[in-house]
């Protein structure tokens, strides 16, 4: 028999994987860049509205389209509102909205995909045909249709984007779950007498969740851009609230005389997309077990 001695004496080696995800991301070159950039944007969203002196929604018709100055660091817009304050105020709608949609899509995709893979049979067929129908429709057009039914508005927009996007995640979740279930280590776990729910939780769900997390992080950039695009078209955030895409839309009439109104929100959208792509790439490297050395 095996004795309970000598054990625990092994010093725990600090590896990327045992140190937790944040440490592993920090050790990854792209991951660190993505983390820093994302942290800066989150700080802008959280601290900006509290620290900045100007009200983002208060017009000041004496100072319309003012150039960047000591008082208004990024200038003012056509109604004299402070550009920096509006960017900070809009950050949570762009970033937080995208994160919310991704979380929704991740959860629904994971559940639908894994249920289809595990249940099989008729349920699998029905769920996957629904996914097929969803994937046959162009996502943005479908979101337009949902918004047409619900009417424009920020929360309606988030819902429409989630409805248009979940099918891809469900499809990937099902494929990953089927692949994981066919691996020899899963067969070994079954044969050593682990219950089906134990196999699901210990072996299959983690594999699916990591795959989906990588895809969701990579998709986050696209989601930020999509929220901005719909707001640009006037279907998302409504006046007077600030959102980066809507600000970009408003600035287009003045960009010859006030280019700062165009550059600043565009740069922030770019930074957010870049940060989430960097994080996604890093996450993919870290969580691909075969690629780890």
């Amino acid at each position, binding site marked *: 028999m095996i004795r309970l001695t000598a*054990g625990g004496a092994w010093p725990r080696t600090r590896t990327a*994987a045992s140190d937790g995800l944040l440490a592993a991301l920090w050790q990854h070159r792209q991951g660190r860049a993505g983390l820093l950039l994302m942290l800066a944007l989150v700080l802008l969203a959280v601290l900006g509205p509290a620290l900045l002196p100007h009200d983002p929604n208060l017009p000041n018709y004496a100072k319309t389209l003012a150039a960047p100055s000591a008082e208004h660091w990024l200038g003012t817009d056509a109604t004299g509102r402070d550009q920096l304050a509006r960017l900070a105020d809009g950050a949570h709608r762009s970033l937080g909205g995208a994160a919310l949609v991704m979380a929704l899509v991740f959860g629904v995709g994971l559940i639908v995909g894994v249920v289809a893979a595990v249940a099989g049979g008729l349920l699998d067929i029905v769920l996957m045909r629904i996914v097929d129908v969803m994937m046959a429709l162009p996502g943005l057009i479908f979101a337009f249709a949902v918004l047409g039914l619900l009417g424009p508005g920020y929360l309606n927009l988030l819902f429409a984007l989630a409805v248009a996007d979940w099918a891809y995640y469900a499809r990937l979740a099902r494929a990953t779950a089927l692949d994981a279930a066919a691996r020899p280590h899963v067969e070994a776990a079954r044969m050593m007498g682990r219950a089906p729910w134990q196999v699901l939780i210990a072996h299959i769900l983690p594999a699916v969740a990591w795959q989906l997390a990588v895809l969701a992080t990579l998709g986050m950039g696209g989601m930020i851009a999509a929220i901005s695009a719909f707001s640009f078209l006037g279907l998302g955030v409504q006046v007077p609230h600030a959102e980066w895409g809507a600000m970009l839309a408003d600035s287009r009439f003045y960009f010859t005389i006030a280019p700062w109104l165009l550059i600043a929100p565009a740069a922030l959208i770019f930074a957010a997309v870049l940060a989430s792509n960097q994080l996604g790439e890093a996450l993919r490297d870290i969580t691909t077990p075969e690629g780890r050395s």
Partner: protein
Amino acid sequence: MTVVLQVTGLGVAYGGRPVVSDISFTLRKGEVLALIGASGSGKTTLMRALLGLLPPTARITGRVEIAGKVIDPTDRRAMRALLGQAIGFVAQDPFAACAPLSPVRNHIAEPWLARGLTPDPARIAALMDQLRIDPAALALYPHQWSGGMLQRASIAAALALDPQVLLADEPSSALDADHAGRVIDLCRSAGRGTLIVSHDLALMSARADRVILLETGRIVAECMACDSVTTTAPVHVRRFTSAAALPLPPPIAAGAKPLMSARGLGMRLGARMLFDDLQIDLKAGEVLGVAGPSGSGKSTLLRVLSGRLAPTAGAVSPNLPAGAVMPIFQDAQGSLNPRWPLWRIVSEPLRTRWRDRLSGAAHRALAVQALVNVSLGHLSPDARPGTLSTGQCQRIAIARALIRPPRLLVADEPTSALDPRQKARVIAALHRVAATGSAIVLVSHDRAVLQTACHRVIELGDDRKPSIAGSF
């Protein structure tokens, strides 16, 4: 005799770190030269260096002559003219070597098509005949072939244009002794010079002419093949072969209880009878070997014995409950969850029953002890399987069986990808499981493993009646 391949002072280095150094040997017309050595000793690197298949980051030094002409393996354009025509190559993994989307026929025709020639049906037919492949099977796709058949197809492709030099990386790893011998005779024919990397010492000592032993990238010994397994072999060779000596199984305890018995076991697959009327009695602590040519139903028998597949005739009694059977797979790496640290993998059998759960620290302690028991105590329990060699992964899988010894352990080709030293270690670890009173059924195509490491061997064959061979 004419020299067909002359290598002088060949070295390969990556970023200043030498992987292979100072390699010199000659290969003569009609000669078979065996390259042996532990895994990681540089055998495959050496072979790929000669073929110009190393990545551009490799620094290659030294001099290579083929039939008296100096060649430059790093000159891709010049090598393209030589490969296939003057130098044939058989890659290690036959499944990876064949494009999965085209029938095997295209794979064999490729040497001709690659240089704009028409494939020669007479030559293909002759090769198929010599390698005992049914020409009708050529229209099938690689996944429909067995590993051993594909390996022979790869050899046919390498020999298609009758090269003067053949470089073969483990060309017989999936073949039984008859086929392997035939393959080596075919390589030797037509005055070819053949360099074979092999783990199969018995085959090489019987069929090759000379043996070169590689250790950490250098040639440490060279001798006649027939001497390599005798006491007159150079000391390095003797040390290498003795490390490869397989251990005998532990004796079965005098009062060992019968574990299971199968009566009249039969399995029919469509119109094909895999096996019929098998009688198997297993005692606790017994190691039973299963032999037979590829496709004879060895793996199917394991599935039947472990209760994963119902036989079409006969029965196994008693039915072992879930958790009483533990599998060891040929794909050692795949049988371990790549995301888990070793301690968690090894202690998984302890987590099957929720109410018997131990603390994480206890699992870890037991896992560390199990790792020590399979001579892997030097590994960190927090390492992941991706960092380990195949042989180490196989022993991790055995440690997992050892932590809660099963009543029956079924092992499907657990040593097929391993070098002789690793093979001996894996067998020793399996015997440790047997010593705890578990019965083991071991499927292998490796005669040496079956004859030395098992108490009994049953043979599944073409005559469909198994014969009990070799009893202790």
